């Protein structure tokens, strides 16, 4: 009996509650955050906060005011770093800011040029932000992207997250960012998106694509931007291509053929001979034809061979384009050739490590593409062909 009384008395002390108790309705949930340069040694942190709808507001099918209500709002604060700016933003909110659901981190172009590693530190060190969040670099000011409405998704944050999971550009999470930064090459690639105010109204959204290409970083500083087309080349190099249609012009058939790769693997085979460093990019891919605007019958082995050859050349030219920018313009090894050399030639790499920046542009790159067209799609002859069967179509 005495024991029971004691236990009851002791548990009274716990009635005050738990220190870390948080209720959902006390939280302001961040869905995306944008960091821009504000002035000298100052940053501008903007967060997109989810606005919870009232439960039961409006009936089924009854249009009420709440249906057109905004789902998110954007708040900004200035500070010397994220933590400092965060406290300024917090002062504007009646609820405690919560990072746990923030899926997108945007950085403005200007701040990217100065380096973003210091800001990333907050995101990795603080226990709330998740490492699964994706990074984007925005043309102009990053905050503008947060303000725009998305056509299909709840918010721009959700739209950008979907982009990442579609693998149209390169999905780069915080972990990927740090892996690239800590890799041998110390070059980082992050998707680069259109300025927000170019995507404001419906017309602009129809006209402009949000994804512009890839921002290439040397260490944590922005070195340059690859166009969409060059980005494809980079994705091939990094063995990250999953969705791409390749359209090739066939002079023999007077028209275009499009092929969608189903499977693609890239191998980097480094070679050091007589002190000359070179690398062989070996690509093995197979795909299906999805569009045929030529006069060729795709059931003919000869026309498949023609397509394969043109696809090979097309992939090669895309990679050459990416490499031209990376090697000659930015001197940033975003394809991570350094790691390939490190793996195969550890000793030579050890010596070359300090002068990799000087060595990288000199590296000879050979590209070998083995493209196989497996299926012509669901029809054999071009859809517009009026020739009769059995006639030679060449």
């Amino acid at each position, binding site marked *: 009996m005495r024991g029971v009384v004691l236990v009851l008395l002791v548990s009274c002390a716990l009635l005050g509650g738990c*220190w870390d108790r948080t209720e959902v309705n006390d939280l302001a949930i961040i869905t995306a955050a944008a960091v821009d340069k504000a002035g000298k040694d100052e940053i501008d942190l903007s967060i997109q906060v989810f606005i919870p709808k009232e439960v039961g507001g409006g009936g089924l099918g009854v249009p009420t005011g709440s249906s057109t209500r905004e789902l998110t709002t954007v708040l900004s604060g200035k500070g010397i770093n994220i933590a400092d700016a965060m406290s300024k933003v917090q002062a504007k909110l009646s609820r405690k800011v919560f990072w746990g659901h923030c899926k997108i981190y945007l950085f403005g172009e200007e701040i990217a040029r100065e380096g973003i590693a210091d800001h990333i530190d907050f995101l990795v060190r603080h226990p709330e932000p998740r490492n699964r969040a994706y990074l984007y670099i925005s043309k102009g000011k990053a905050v503008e992207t947060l303000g725009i409405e998305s056509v299909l998704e709840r918010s721009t944050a959700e739209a950008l997250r979907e982009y990442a999971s579609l693998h149209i550009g390169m999905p780069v999470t915080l972990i990927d960012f740090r892996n690239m930064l*800590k890799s041998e090459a110390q070059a980082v690639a992050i998707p680069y998106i259109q300025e927000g105010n170019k995507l404001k109204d419906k017309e602009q959204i129809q006209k402009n694509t949000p994804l512009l290409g890839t921002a290439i970083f040397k260490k944590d500083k922005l070195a340059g931007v690859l166009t969409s087309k060059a980005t494809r080349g980079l994705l091939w190099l990094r063995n990250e291509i999953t969705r791409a249609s390749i359209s090739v012009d066939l002079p023999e058939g007077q028209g275009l053929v499009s092929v969608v790769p189903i499977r693609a693997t890239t191998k980097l085979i480094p070679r050091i001979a007589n002190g000359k460093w070179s690398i062989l990019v070996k690509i093995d891919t197979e795909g299906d034809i999805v569009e045929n605007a030529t006069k060729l019958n795709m059931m003919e082995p000869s026309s498949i061979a023609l397509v394969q050859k043109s696809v090979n050349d097309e992939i090669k030219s895309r990679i050459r384009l990416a490499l031209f920018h990376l090697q000659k313009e930015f001197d940033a090894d975003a394809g991570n050739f350094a790691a390939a050399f490190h*793996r*195969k030639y550890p000793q030579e790499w050890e010596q070359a490590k300090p002068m990799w920046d000087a060595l990288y542009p000199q590296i000879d790159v050979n590209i070998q593409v083995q493209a196989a067209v497996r299926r012509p799609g669901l029809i054999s002859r071009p859809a517009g062909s009026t020739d009769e069967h059995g006639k030679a179509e060449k």
Partner: protein
Amino acid sequence: MLEQGKISSAQMGKMIFLAVIASAVTAVPSYSGKYAQNDLWLSPAWASLTGFLTVYAAIALNKLYPQKSVVEYSTDIIGTIPGKLFGLLILFFYIHMTGLIARGYAEFIIGNFLPQTPISIVIITMIAVCAYAVKAGVESIGRTAQLFFFFFMFPLILMPFLLRDMKPDFLFPMLEHGLLPSLKGALIPQGYFSEAFLMSFFLPFVTDRGKGMRSGMLTILGIALMLTCINLFILLVFGTQAADYLYPVMVAFRYISIADFFENLDSVVMTVWILGMFVKISIFYYATVLGTSQWLGLADYRPIVLPIGILIAALSFWSIPNLNQASRFDVISFPFYGPLMQTICPLLLLGLALLRKKGKQQSQAQMTMAPEQAHTHTEKQEG
């Protein structure tokens, strides 16, 4: 005997498994990664050598003194006063370690999940629960270990969820700088392996002691395998940045995202990990309590459970001021402190005990012959 309970050798194995791995699993990939870089997956294999040696010492000593723990047989081996002094050292070591483990546990909880909660609450609640287990005796600790062992395996099932994010390239170049980095990386985990010596407190209560050696060795093998698995998994996901995270395993499980639906699995992993930590702290706590009552020659160990619990809580505050001191201790002192008390000293004891036994056998052999001689000798003297 102080303890009436009995455990099986399989239960003992599971207890030791959890006692070693519960805290090792959070920090080892980070510590090993610091020195071994991308060879960190090799380190647990080297480290397990200490574990095998420790288990051998504990079991061999138990064979010589089947009903006694280390605190008791040390007086038999090296004499009353040195033996008692050694016992005191061992007890101090264990009470200190229990405090440090409780603190490490609390630091993890506070740092990751409950930043606002006072650390004393986290430590005291844990020690209170453990005190209850210790009071209930070795049997209940054995059974909890048996049950929680299976829960503890659960995170291994979650690992394949990260397959998409694993990059086999991080493994290469293997052994770039030879074996040395991986050996350096083994220095810290081998400290954890030496904790297997705790079995010397439990062996007297094991019913099927013939299987003790087998289950002890299997336990060490299991720990080595699990740590290798975890290190490999961390390496493939994080590459060389593994060493930067204080709790890489936690970060990795937090990184899991399946179909945007299975996310934030860290809370599941944390729950399982707390179960493991509960067993670990209970075992250390129990060893301290049992050893102390044996050292003092008490009739029952239950009255000192609470006082020692209070001491453990106090030590968890006194020992270290902050997390980076704790991690400094783990890196600089513990790899030597742990094995010194738990592997080297027992091996020395074993050596001395074997010498003693040999000496005794010789003197016994002499004794059987001696009486006649002695007799004649005395006669001569009288004469």
